[in-house]
């Protein structure tokens, strides 16, 4: 489903019509709420809405944890590649060493994670189903694995994409309800069966150009009350829900530790860059001429006055015509540029807080202004800036989770993937929080020690 181009406040899509169908059959009025795709189960479980729809996949984990409806649409996971690669990149096995994108928390992502181990490709997780295809055309990806409905929709609107005919796996869309709503689910199932029987579903899917021969085959089995397995084409069971919680932790811990490493490296490097830029900006604002000061003030206000999420999107997606940065580099640049504005304000305040007497004493000794800054004003300002800088570094450590929107898998993103597959946030959330604390707590200690050391006389 997506926003109606004619009226962006209205949603359109076959899922909207299915929702209207269900609501009508259950004697309710449909009201649509927007929830991030990867959080639909959690939102339903906590009661944000009664029914979750919109490409919700039929997985064993979801069937076990939630009350899912019978499937209402069968889809195939298909590979999309650039036209030029259509002859070569026909299956996962041909994608060794290449980047393949998909929507995070989906069957397709799970398939790609396995293919990472098996074929050596690199799975890239997205939060939406449009940017994987635009990144494919930009060359940031070599293939996209998503269901045939999404792939066909993009192929029609984005020239240059070839959808490979062979299905990598087959699964279905279902509606998802909270486990406690089993009776509502059973009622919804009957509404769906009736719509299968009387051709309502076929009419809806035909209207949206997604009707194919897979659907009558599925409906016949469902109407005959035959069991339908959630996924086929994947040898092992999906996700980690089938194994014990502790086993799941053991399985995911290495990837969480690795993601924490990404978070740490990203934070440290972008903070280092932000500090250097911040010093330059602050010096320019204190010592520069009118034009320099105006330009730097404009920069600082722009970076502080707009959301960092917007800045990250602009740097990664918005500037592709100018510069095509890899995701990690774009994340690093985005965080560094944003935090440089905040650091510069700290340094400017600190520079201006150094007493005039200190500067005059240095000047009368014959030091040049540059030497005064380097030998007296700078070092004194840095001591004043240390505490707020530590504070900012801890904030940056956490803000680095925002870069997951640029497909960088850092600690929070990895935790979300873990939680989606496990169907619970309790264990992943606790582990994630512990890891952030392990990284942030020592910072405070280091800062305190530095402050102590600077109180002692310089030999």
């Amino acid at each position, binding site marked *: 489903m997506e926003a109606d181009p004619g009226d962006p406040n209205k949603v359109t899509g076959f899922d909207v019509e299915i929702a209207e169908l269900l609501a009508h059959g259950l004697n309710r009025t449909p009201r649509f709420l927007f929830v991030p795709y990867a959080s639909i189960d959690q939102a339903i479980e906590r009661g944000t809405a009664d029914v979750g729809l919109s490409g919700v996949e039929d997985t064993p984990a979801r069937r076990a944890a939630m009350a899912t409806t019978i499937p209402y649409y069968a889809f195939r996971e298909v590979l999309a590649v650039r036209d030029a690669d259509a002859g070569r990149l026909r299956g996962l096995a041909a994608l060794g060493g290449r980047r393949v994108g998909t929507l995070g928390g989906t069957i397709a992502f799970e398939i790609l994670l396995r293919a990472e181990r098996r074929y050596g490709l690199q799975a890239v997780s997205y939060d939406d189903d449009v940017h994987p295809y635009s990144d494919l055309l930009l060359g940031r990806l070599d293939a996209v694995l998503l269901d045939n409905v999404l792939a066909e929709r993009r192929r029609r609107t984005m020239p240059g994409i070839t959808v490979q005919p062979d299905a990598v796996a087959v699964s279905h869309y279902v509606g998802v309800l909270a486990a406690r709503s089993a009776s509502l689910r059973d009622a919804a199932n009957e509404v769906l069966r009736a719509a299968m029987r009387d051709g309502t579903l076929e009419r809806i899917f035909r209207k949206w150009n997604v009707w194919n021969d897979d659907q009558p085959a599925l409906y016949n089995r469902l109407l005959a009350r035959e069991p339908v397995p959630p996924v086929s084409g994947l040898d092992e069971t999906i996700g980690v829900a089938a194994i014990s919680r502790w086993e799941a932790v053991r399985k995911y811990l290495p990837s969480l530790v690795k993601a924490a490493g990404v978070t740490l490296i990203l934070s440290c490097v972008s903070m280092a860059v932000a500090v250097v830029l911040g010093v330059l900006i602050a010096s320019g604002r204190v010592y520069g001429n009118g034009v320099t000061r105006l330009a730097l003030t404009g920069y600082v206000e722009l970076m502080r006055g707009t959301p960092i999420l917007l800045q990250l999107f602009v740097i990664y997606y918005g500037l592709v015509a100018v510069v095509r940065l890899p995701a990690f580099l774009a994340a690093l640049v985005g965080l560094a540029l944003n935090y440089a504005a905040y650091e510069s304000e700290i340094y400017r305040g600190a520079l201006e807080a150094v*007493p005039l*007497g*200190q500067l*005059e*004493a*240095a*000047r*009368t*000794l*014959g*030091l*040049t202004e540059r*030497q005064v800054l380097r*030998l*007296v004003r700078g*070092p*004194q300002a840095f*001591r004043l800036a240390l505490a707020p800088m530590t504070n900012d570094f801890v904030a940056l450590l956490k803000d680095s989770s925002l870069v997951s929107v640029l497909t960088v898998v850092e600690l929070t993103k990895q935790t979300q993937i873990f939680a989606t597959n496990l169907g619970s946030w309790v264990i992943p959330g606790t582990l994630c929080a512990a890891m952030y604390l392990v990284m942030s707590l020592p910072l405070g200690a280091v800062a305190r020690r530095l402050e102590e050391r*600077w*109180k002692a*006389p*310089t*030999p």
Partner: protein
Amino acid sequence: MEGADAVTATILEVRNLHLRRGDRRVLTGATFTVARAGIVALMGPSGSGKTTILRAIAGLERFDEGTIGIEGVTLKGGAKPSGAVLRNVRRQVGLVFQFHHLFDHLSTMRNVTLAPVHVLGTSAAAAETHARDLLRALGVEHRASALPRELSGGEAQRVAIARALAVDPPLLMMDEPTASLDPSRRNELGELLARLSGQNRTILVSTHDEDFARRWATVILRVEDGAIAE
């Protein structure tokens, strides 16, 4: 001494200094000369312009009219002095502030060696040896590794004097040096200044301490309402 190296009898010549801050006339034509060697006291009540005169001589205060000549370098009223002029002035003049303004982040030793190393290009070792001699002469060698906040008022003043002397300025100025000293310390300071002054060093102090000036100064100039009274 001979030829170009000949030393003139006058080290400082201040002519007709005028300075207005808004409606307030801070300096109203201050004119005086300071002869080489000796201790010159600028006497006057607070607000009379003593400190402003010292600051103007050190190149810290711009003035509207007049000239200040120190050892062949001239500061002119109404114009911003160039960096080169300021550097030359500051090679000739040292200033010990009333509140010392020692560098908070540096030890006593580093306070004293900073300018020799970075302005004169003296090696760190030579600067340290010289600094130790100065601190010893001033009786604060044992405080070499202390931070400014750990020093007493008298110690801080001596360190500030050592810091100013480290670059060996012919003219050493001190702003209200007795303000924070008890009477016995004032005499110690007077003896110290008498020792420091000589053919190679002239001392100019601002003070409103009549007894101190009478006892130690070789010349007393009285400042009244921004000018020198006769």
